[in-house]
């Protein structure tokens, strides 16, 4: 276990981390000067989390269960991604929605609807609308790729929470960023470097939704939480749960794969 941790830390911290420890040991007052090394660490942590489900390219199968007070439905999805810019998601089950596909390229989203055999582009006015009836919005898919550019992140806590050593990353939107959230706080397990919980606040600092990550599984070298639960704060009886069944990372996928033609073909 210790070996794993050391590996992780090495992988993450490489040069800057060592420098930090060195300074910390020798010159205590310089602790404050070494602050920039923290920032590097934050970015690396965020990169690390981004890569968990996605790698450089990925191919995953998952089930999404949406529970609202009016309905509960479960879908099986197949998803491909390349970086943060490109993703393609196709519904495999239930039969009624089979073949409905979503293509995301940069900031655009298209839906393919097999019943009427049409591709429709989601206009900007509908971005805040729900994606496939879940608690995720179309915007959640789009804004993901600009998260690093839109928010300024920093480690705001390092230590034990509920008996687990964690890093707490707080992300505050940059001055002119067009974003939905006023603050996003994420807790990351220090040992496995996998996220535990993410809290989304609005501009008034009110908690809007909580995403919890559990059922960690080893995929290659990484520990990846296989279950993601999104819980809106104002509707405690509702939730959207994504359970990954299978993730294959770093498979060959060119950006040409994420085309409108493929959106229709992949059903």
């Amino acid at each position, binding site marked *: 276990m210790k070996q794993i941790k050391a590996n992780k830390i090495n992988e993450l911290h490489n040069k800057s981390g060592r420098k930090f420890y060195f300074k910390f040991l020798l010159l205590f007052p310089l602790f404050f000067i070494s602050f920039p090394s923290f920032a590097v660490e934050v970015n690396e942590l965020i990169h690390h989390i981004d890569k968990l489900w996605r790698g450089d390219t990925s191919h995953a199968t998952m089930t999404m269960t949406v529970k609202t007070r009016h309905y509960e439905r479960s879908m099986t999805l197949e998803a491909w991604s390349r970086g943060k810019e490109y993703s393609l998601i196709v519904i495999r089950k239930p039969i009624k929605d089979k073949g409905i596909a979503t293509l995301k390229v940069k900031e655009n989203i298209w839906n393919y609807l097999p019943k009427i055999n049409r591709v429709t582009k989601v206009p900007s*006015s509908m971005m805040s609308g729900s994606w496939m009836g879940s608690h995720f919005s179309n915007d959640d898919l789009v804004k993901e790729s600009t998260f690093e550019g839109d928010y300024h992140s920093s480690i705001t806590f390092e230590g034990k929470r509920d008996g687990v050593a964690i890093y707490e990353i707080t992300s505050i939107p940059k001055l002119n960023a067009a974003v939905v959230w006023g603050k996003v706080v994420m807790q990351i397990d220090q040992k496995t470097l996998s996220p535990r919980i993410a809290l989304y606040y609005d501009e008034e600092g009110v908690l809007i939704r909580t995403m919890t990550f559990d059922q960690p599984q080893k995929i290659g070298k990484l520990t990846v939480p296989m279950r993601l639960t999104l819980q809106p704060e104002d509707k405690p009886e509702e939730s959207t749960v994504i359970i990954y069944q299978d993730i294959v990372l770093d498979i060959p996928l060119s950006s040409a794969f994420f085309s409108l033609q493929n959106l229709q073909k992949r059903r």
Partner: protein
Amino acid sequence: MKNNVSSFSQLPILIFIAWRNLWRNPVRSILTISALASGLIMVILYASLLEGMTRQMVRFATEISISDIQVHRQAYIDDQDIYATLPWSYLKKMEQDFPSLHFSPRIYAAGLASVADTSTGVLIKAVDPKREKEVTKLFEHVRHGKLDLGIADTTKNGFVRYNVVIGAQLAKNMNVKIGDELVLVTQAVDGSIGNALYRIAGVLKPLEPNFDRIGVLMSIKAYQQLMYLKDGFHELAIKINDMALLQDTQNKIKNELTQLGKQQPLDKFGGKPVVRNWRQLTPAVADMMEMSKAIVLVVGFIIVSLASLGMLNTMLMAVHERTHEFGILLAIGMKRRWLLLMVLFESFFLALVSAVVGTLIGLVINEYFEEHGIDFSKSMPDGYDWAGMIFEPVMKGYLLPGDVLYACLMMMVVTMLASLIPSWRTVRLKPADAMR
């Protein structure tokens, strides 16, 4: 006593003299009469146009879209909660219990409409054509095409296309014409993606700005196949036959809903059913009606006052000219109050003739306004919108007989008040000075 009797016997002579006095200077009198009469005509036409506008507003509000009374669930009013429906059994029961009223259920949803490359957010409104025709004239309100919400055709893969009718502005923005295909994508109530193809069968005339810009009208059957919302409707529009029974009917429906709520409770999320009449539904229209009465009164008073200044001038001149004459009359024993009365009679005749002439001409012009109206359709073919309602580009008058009477009365009163000044001068004449 004897004196009194003789006084009254002199009255017809006095009136006769006053009348004759008017025509001693016919040009001046006719000018005064025409000033007063045109003032009156303006007041009459103004009242007529404002009343016509108000009536058009109420007609648009009630006859075409809102109807007289509407029922919604509270949660639907608050935030258009698509799940806040009234069950179909309620409608059935109410139709049984109130055979004299007409009911039309309506269902709404937000969706995404696309034609070729353009997509835009739309408001889907679903009605039952048979019931809707009994409640509103929506189905006569078509600009192009036909208001047909039936099945258009079946595509090759066995998919049924329904006809829809869209708002004029939406048709313009999406650049579509009749017969084009419209794709609607929305989130159905079971969380799945509702999607279907439609054929545009017609374009509605402007109705209310919102619906005109984003409205898509379809049949309830088509809606249910798109949205999977089968167990109820969002809005119940009710038409009553006698407007005087509005409040009474509203209360009866409230009671009926309370009864139904006991027999067949509604789900807990949607809130209570709320019954509102058209005045509550469109407060702007109700306010406008109240306001228009006050506006007519104020504007009318200003016009008449200005016109009566002309009358004041005329009478002052007339009295001044006849100072010598009045002096002689006083000297030979004419009572001052008789002199005062004579001058007042002269003013009264002026006002009366003006009232008759003004009313006659006013009625003739108003007849034209009621028939043809003032037509703005060249500059504003779609009409204009005010307070969330769209008006036809033709302003038509509507004259209430009471308004004419009030206008005449107001003019008479104002002119008589004005004529008190010249008559008072005659009372204060000293015969010796006057004759000098």
